[in-house]
């Protein structure tokens, strides 16, 4: 028997067979007291808080290690200095399919609706378009990229009696944040390069909870929307220690992500002429942390390249002001690790020589909330093919979370198309 709390606080039972389309069952096993939602607060990005910018297929396949290794214009999102190491011109477009499972968000498993299983949010997006080019000792890049996504699996709970629908509650949340990057890099010497990027972010988040007491003719709707704007800079250095070993460091500045927030809470009973509205609006701010990383790239042979990253995110400085109030976000600093390996194979097909990289990687991606401590471990893989000036790369990443007690998972697949001129 499933129950929900009626308007007088009394439980109203309904036969489980009458519930469509989702069956929510009470979760009988132990649950950690995850009172702070942490990872899936409304403003939490899907999959990870530690977003440096979209990972295209080559870097995704290498575990996301891209502070000292570059393949295309997306290098500017992490370390613009690497633009100097790219071919004379690259034009890149990339798309991806991302999914992440969630156990607790909004009204799900926080006291209103409960489920036995994790629910999965999945989305497909064209998430990067950009180009880079070199002119003498200078290199430049411009790109538009998907930085974060805020979607949640929609919930739709309905309770029927013999007379039909008596109650329903549903939620929907969607939104994303996009990053427009303009970067410049300069080769300072044969071994040293420096780069600087300017980033404008813009996005929107919308959330609705609708509740309908059919018999009483009551509709309750809670609608919230936020329009985000922000600006930050990123910079990096790259140093070739030798023909085989490169080192790099990069930095992302902290910044204020401003939000034009609006809310409307509405209670309607048309038959009684009741229409109570509580509107609100606010200029809010999310203080994003600075982040700094270091990477190494090692080429033990002409066909093999190994890259590794270590990034620090200063999440302890994060703050969220939501409708004028600073919200509790008990976050701690985290270190994200990534490493990858790329082997370039070559073979002949139809009389032409094709080059195809094989890539594998891994990463360890701790999330910033203190309770529960939570981290994803990823394995990544990918391949590609270069045919003349065109490269097509594919990659996949499978992540498993530990710490929350709910074995969350995350997956991502990407396909990237790059047109290259020059070596």
């Amino acid at each position, binding site marked *: 028997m499933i*129950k929900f*709390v*009626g*308007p*007088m*606080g*009394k*439980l109203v039972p309904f036969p489980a067979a009458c519930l469509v389309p989702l069956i929510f069952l*009470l*979760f*009988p*096993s*132990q*649950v950690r*007291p*995850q*009172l702070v939602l942490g990872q899936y607060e409304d403003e939490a990005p899907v999959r990870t808080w530690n977003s440096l910018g979209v990972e295209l297929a080559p870097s995704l396949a290498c575990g996301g290690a891209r502070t000292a290794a570059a393949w295309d214009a997306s290098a500017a999102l992490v370390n613009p200095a690497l633009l100097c190491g790219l071919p004379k011109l690259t034009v890149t477009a990339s798309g991806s399919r991302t999914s992440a499972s969630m156990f607790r968000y*909004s*009204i799900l*498993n*926080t*006291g*209103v609706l*409960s489920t036995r299983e994790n629910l999965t949010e999945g989305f497909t997006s064209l998430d990067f378009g950009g180009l880079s080019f070199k002119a003498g000792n200078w290199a430049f890049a411009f790109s538009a990229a998907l930085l974060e996504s805020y979607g949640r699996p929609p919930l739709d709970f309905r309770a029927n009696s013999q007379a039909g629908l008596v109650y329903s509650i549903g939620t929907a949340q969607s939104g994303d944040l996009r990053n427009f990057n303009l970067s410049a890099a300069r080769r300072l010497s044969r071994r040293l390069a420096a780069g600087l990027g300017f980033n404008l972010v813009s996005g929107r988040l919308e959330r609705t*909870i609708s*509740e309908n*007491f059919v018999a*009483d*003719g*009551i509709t*309750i709707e*809670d609608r*919230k929307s936020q329009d985000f704007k922000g600006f930050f800079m990123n910079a990096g250095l790259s140093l070739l220690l030798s023909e085989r070993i490169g080192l790099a460091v990069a930095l992302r500045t902290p910044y204020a992500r401003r939000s034009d927030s609006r*809310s409307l*809470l509405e*209670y309607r*009973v048309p*038959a*009684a002429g*009741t229409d*109570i*509205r*509580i*509107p*609100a609006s*606010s200029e809010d701010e999310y203080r994003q942390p600075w982040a700094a990383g270091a990477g190494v790239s090692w080429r033990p042979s002409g066909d093999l390249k190994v890259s590794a990253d270590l990034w620090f995110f200063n999440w302890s400085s994060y703050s969220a002001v*939501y*409708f*004028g*109030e*600073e919200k509790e976000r008990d976050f701690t600093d985290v270190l994200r690790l990534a490493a990858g390996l790329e082997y370039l194979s070559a073979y002949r097909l139809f009389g032409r020589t094709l080059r195809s990289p094989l890539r594998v990687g891994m990463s360890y991606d701790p999330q910033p909330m203190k309770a529960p401590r939570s981290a994803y471990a990823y394995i990544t893989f990918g391949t590609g093919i270069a045919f003349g000036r065109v490269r097509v790369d594919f990659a996949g990443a499978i992540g498993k979370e530990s710490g929350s007690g709910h074995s969350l998972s995350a997956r991502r697949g990407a396909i990237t198309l790059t047109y290259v001129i020059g070596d």
Partner: protein
Amino acid sequence: MKKRKAILWFLLLSVGLGPPLFSGPDGPGEIISIPGTADARRDLHDLDLDLLMERDGRIFVVAGPDDILRLSARRVPFVIETGSFAPARPGELGLAGGINGDYHSYKELEADLKSLESAHPSIVDLHTIGTSLEDRNIYAVKISDNVDRDEEEAGVLFLGCHHAREWISVEVPFLLARWLAEGYEGNPAIRELVDRSEIWIVPLLNPDGLEYSINVYRYWRKNRRANADGTFGVDLNRNYGYMWGRDDQGSSAEPDAGDYRGVSAFSEPETRAIGNLFLGRNFLAAVSYHSYSQSILYPWGFTDIPTGKDDLLRGLGLEMAGLIQTVNGRSYACGPAASSLYVTNGDLADWTFGVSGIPSYTIELPPVDIQHGGFFNAEDEIEGVFRENLPAMLRLVEFAVRTR
């Protein structure tokens, strides 16, 4: 005798309402309406009152405190209408806006209570009587003369927001604290009342639940206890120790239920905070504000057997209901909780009455039914609901003072 008391409370009501919304010929005043009869017109002429308008057979005038007194002496029935002409405006009531409009969030209330204390340190003392499960402070405002000393004076306890979604129940006790503090200096009647009593006001007992109700799910009722089975919340008003868990009709043993009583009496830090506050002092009356249904309920909640003090409880309850009705015509039902609304066990009123025998009430604020808003009240109703309850609140304090 009752008439005189009513006049006293009307006087208090009319002269002490913080910043005056209207000024009549005698200074701060109220808009009142009286029936548009020939006799009433003659009275208005005799009293030299300014006519505002006529509507629906009633005459609206601005009346100062003395005018109201004289109207009462002439037995002219009147209704105070100021609330309906001057809806609450942010800032005027000290309410802070934000995502829940003019209603208080936890932080807004915390800030307003601290401001109240710093503005009136001689009569307002803000206490932290406990912390919630999510580590928010549970505040109690003590209002009295010599406020930093516990004196042998009549204690009265006003509580709000056992249930998270009942936002109006935060505002009414908070506005009482503000009204008393701001009226103390300029109004001898308030001063006398405050000097002779120790009024404790806990406007927000369930801060975690309120925050969840504001930010996530408006209809949330309980606190935010993470129950062992994965559900959330204990109904704080089923968690007190008198007849706790007596049956499953007046509360539920099921953690997913809206009226889940918890694993034991006083299992929740919020109810323990009230328990410690109450047992450590000499309270002579207590009111717990809820919504909705416009009712004044008195013990018992756990059974329909009379308490043995029903004459007192009913008499005082009816008197409060009458005072409320006199303000704006709104009717509150009055009766024993179990037979008037539904059976409850482990609620505050049963516990305070059960352990001390003092008059204890659960007052269900407007609206009267779910069709007219249920747990929702429009922002511009906040002040009106407070004003209609104010004479009843003062009556209870006066009762405690006289009893002592």
